[in-house]
């Protein structure tokens, strides 16, 4: 395992040195069903044989992807291009309907507005999250002060999560997700809602994880953030990889097409 000690913004591709694979996707497809809003009439349910208004979404359509340990990969693309579904499949919260995903170790997924329990306070949520991740009660208590300091929510840490702003929730979620020093961290637009100070701290934390050969996938619409944090970027379009390469090159083309 080679630790990437260089600044992430440099153009050195991690693939140049022989490294260990952290994530491997082969012909990955993700389909899931969503139920249309509103109540279905009972009469129609009988006519359609009991089926609800199910709409199938084919979010990821045949992705092949190798990510090295210690690599930080940006994922960009329009809304609905399959970015979150790809992350969900890699985390294992969504299942591949076709193809395979394999990982070095269980990734930690950090979603936007991730709230564990809106009725409970921030500190209770930290405990809940830590225990669900498999830490012991003592381990969580031991780490709690550091987590709370990182989240930097002040007295709000004792207020129910329902009273938090998006940015505050993101701070808490980021703190919980990095609780275990995950080898693979998947971040789904969670940094974007934080303030500048929190983004700076998060980027610092991401670089720390990279130094210990942690692998990071960052979904973001903030291209500066991707540029600062990621050496390599993939561009998703309608569930497929449209482009894959060094961040600066991919971003240049992405921005050129935007106009």
């Amino acid at each position: 395992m080679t630790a990437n000690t260089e600044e992430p913004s440099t153009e050195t591709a991690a693939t140049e040195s022989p490294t260990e694979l952290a994530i491997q996707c082969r012909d990955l497809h993700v389909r899931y069903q969503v139920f249309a809003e509103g109540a279905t009439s009972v009469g129609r349910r009988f006519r359609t044989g009991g089926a609800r208004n199910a709409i199938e979404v084919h979010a990821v359509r045949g992705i092949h992807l190798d990510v090295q340990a210690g690599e930080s990969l940006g994922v960009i693309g329009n809304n609905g291009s399959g970015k979150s579904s790809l992350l969900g499949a890699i985390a294992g919260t969504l299942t591949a309907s076709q193809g395979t995903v394999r990982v070095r170790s269980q990734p930690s997924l950090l979603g936007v507005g991730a709230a564990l329990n809106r009725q409970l306070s921030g500190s209770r949520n930290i405990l809940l999250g830590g225990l669900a991740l498999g830490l012991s009660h003592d381990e969580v208590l031991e780490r709690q002060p550091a987590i709370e300091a990182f989240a930097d929510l002040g007295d709000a840490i004792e207020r129910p999560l329902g009273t938090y702003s998006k940015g505050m929730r993101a701070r808490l979620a980021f703190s919980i997700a990095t609780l275990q020093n995950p080898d693979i961290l998947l971040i789904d637009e969670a940094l974007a809602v934080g303030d500048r100070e929190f983004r700076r701290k998060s980027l610092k934390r991401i670089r720390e994880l990279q130094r210990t050969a942690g692998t990071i996938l960052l979904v973001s619409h903030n291209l500066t953030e991707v540029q600062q944090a990621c050496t390599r970027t993939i561009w998703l379009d309608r569930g497929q990889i449209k482009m894959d390469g060094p961040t600066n090159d991919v971003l240049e083309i992405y921005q050129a097409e935007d106009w």
Partner: protein
Amino acid sequence: MPMLRRFCGRVYPMQVSARDPDNGGVSLGAHPELAAVDDSLVAPGLQVGVGEYLSQMWARRDYMRHVPSTTLRSRYMNTALGNLWQLLNPLISLGTYFLIFGLVLGTRTGVDDFLPFLTIGIFVYSFTQRATITGSRSITRNKGLVRSLVFPRAILPVTSVVTEWLAFLPGLALAILVSLAWGNYPTLLWLALPLVVLLHMILNIGFALVAARLNDAYRDFEQILPFVFRMVFYGSGVLFAVENVVSESTRRFFLINPLYDVIEVYRWVLLDNTARPAEAVVALAWTAVMTPFGLWFFRRVEPTYAH
């Protein structure tokens, strides 16, 4: 980079497959240079065997241990009497049933020790009822947790059952006190009580697992469940001795009701009046089938719980 701009102008999807050194290492299309399949990698999430799954659950035993007590404490958080309700609640429900069914309607006729008989029936029945109903909501009410973190989801219904088990303990203590007060002195059979409680709890985990999946698929289930339990209530001999109401041959049909069996086993142990070996065997059989089935049934659609 003129080369890149040219590529960009092409019609989607891109068919260029190899990572091309001429264009700065940018590869286009869905097939960049791929490494050989690495067999040391594992599938993410919880697509694991049942043994590994159970050990993952065991690793989260602190969740199942600490969450129930705080849930119970918060249940009465906004009341003036607070935690006292955990004792008052069973006392009041016992008083109500005793008043209506024991004194007014007179179902006590023919039952010795009616009060201990009733106490056991009510609390044993409510443990299963509440464990199943709370368990049915364990996925739907914890969507945030399920969507954010990866962990064996079965710890959620199990946690619900542990919570209701804690709530059941004051009721059980009350049942024991009432039995003692009515002159049922402890026998050797009382030693079997912890085992009976444990098996009862395992059976309830089976019900909770099934209910959790059904309610996640159809929220209607949560609406129907109270009515199902109302029916089961009258078929479980909570308020009356079944043999006083129906003939011995009809009583056999009650045997298939696991809740009737469990209640009768508790009464056998604590009241020591009639031995109920048949009920004990059927209750054991239910437990041995229901809980493994529940786990299998629950896990079959586990990835869909995050939707």
